[in-house]
């Protein structure tokens, strides 16, 4: 796997001609979005103001505002669609190739629902979507990750559906270097942080939807996470002292809520993230260092999981 500085160099040097072309497209697109945005706002105002003055009902304004945002969002997505697709093909795809030749990138695919449900981290979704799937092998260890959005349906008494988010963010699945049979789930510790150790522990042990609570012997880890498993010993076999330290460091690096599970000899990591991973920013230059670093950083952090957690080390009797 290549270093971060190699990737940054690659971004600025090898991709330079493409960046130049795309930067022109981006400026044109930005201009178009601003013009269309102004026209769209004017049209909306022209319809809404006379309507409000004739009906004099505040609901019209609220309804109007929702309509304005929703329709605006659809138009915006439609406008940037081609640019986004070109950006991913010409920038992200080569960047991933450069990172490791054993990785492949599929901009329209995502982690399967089966893998998401298998992780046991969240309830089963009624609807899911995602994109930017990266899959392959790093140091002989299989890994795949993508953006994933899982939602649950709620039906009200009138039979109308509404959707709530179960998970949105980055979902990573990788082979684990130890064999295990049971399932162990590591969740962000909200109860203990909110209610303190004593009541928090008691509440956690009463979580009916989960297996047995496992108290871990690493104070920092125990403060950040809560562990449930169907096997007290196996949970500790998987979560050795060094893995606990590394996961704590990881959580700090990501800076987002981290959900981890160990099921069927795989590690599943869900990083709750309110942003798409490889989406281009229309209002910021492609040459800005911050823009480049964002893509490189995300890629490096995720693929670095294998090396940092030493998932490639097979010192155990697990067959290679």
């Amino acid at each position: 796997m290549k270093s971060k500085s190699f990737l940054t160099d690659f971004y600025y040097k090898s991709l330079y001609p493409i960046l130049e072309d795309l930067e022109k497209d981006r400026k044109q697109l930005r201009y178009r979005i601003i013009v269309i945005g102004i026209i769209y706002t004017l049209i909306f105002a022209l319809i809404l103001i006379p309507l409000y003055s004739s009906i004099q009902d505040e609901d019209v304004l609220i309804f109007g505002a929702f309509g304005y945002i929703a329709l605006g969002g659809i138009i915006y997505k439609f406008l940037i669609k081609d640019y986004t697709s070109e950006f991913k093909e010409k920038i992200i795809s080569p960047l991933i190739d450069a990172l490791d030749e054993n990785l492949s990138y599929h901009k329209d695919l995502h982690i399967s629902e089966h893998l998401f449900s298998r992780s046991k981290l969240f309830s089963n979704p009624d609807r899911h979507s995602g994109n930017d799937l990266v899959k392959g092998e790093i140091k002989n260890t299989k890994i795949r990750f993508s953006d994933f959005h899982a939602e649950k349906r709620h039906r009200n008494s009138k039979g109308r559906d509404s959707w709530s988010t179960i998970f949105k963010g980055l979902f990573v699945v990788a082979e684990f270097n130890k064999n295990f049979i049971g399932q162990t789930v590591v969740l962000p510790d909200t109860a203990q942080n909110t209610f303190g150790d004593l009541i928090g522990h008691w509440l956690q042990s009463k979580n009916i939807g989960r297996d047995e609570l496992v108290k871990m012997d690493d104070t920092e880890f125990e403060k950040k996470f809560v562990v449930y498993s169907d096997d007290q010993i196996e949970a500790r076999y998987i979560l050795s002292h060094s893995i606990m330290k590394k996961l704590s460091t990881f959580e700090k690096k990501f800076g987002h809520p981290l959900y981890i599970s160990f099921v069927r000899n795989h590690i599943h990591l869900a990083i709750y993230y309110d942003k798409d991973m490889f989406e281009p920013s229309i209002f910021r230059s492609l040459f800005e260092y911050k823009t480049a670093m964002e893509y490189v950083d995300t890629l490096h952090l995720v693929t670095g999981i294998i090396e940092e957690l030493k998932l490639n080390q097979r010192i155990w009797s697990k067959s290679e």
Partner: protein
Amino acid sequence: MSTPLIILIVVILVLVLMYNSLVNKKNQVENIFASVDIQLKKRYDLIPNLVASVSKYMEHEKSLLEEVTKLRADANKANISDEKKIELDAKISSALGSLMIAVENYPDLKANENVMHLQRTLNEVEEQISASRRAYNQAVTDYNNAIEMIPTNFMASAMNYKRKQVFEIVEAERKNVDVKKLFNS
């Protein structure tokens, strides 16, 4: 229902809950110790094989090998107490640790397929033992807390429950790896 009766029922209920929770904690300790025992046996089963494979090469380490063999024989004796098992485990862990370090000095051994396989298996068993030790220690801590804390301590002394011993972590495991030493060797 009269008030004294309600109070009596509540008191009985609380006593039953306390009793059950204590029994539950004691059984948890015993269950987990059974798993520790299984893992320890797995390791003891590996030892004769390991000793046989390395003894041809390791002439200078005769005393170490003898010690490992003797400790294994002690551990395999029938009817030894849990405390004794815990003590023997600590001794064997450190003896095997020294043996594995000694293996590093014999290039022939390091290249030997059989020894490598044994080493991997031993690594895994050690890791599993360490996991079950930690699980056991947690169960014992919960149990010890319950028999010492108010109000369960009264019930525990009535039931004649005594504190249990935890596994001490072997000193060698706790030490950080000395990188300087590694590079110099």
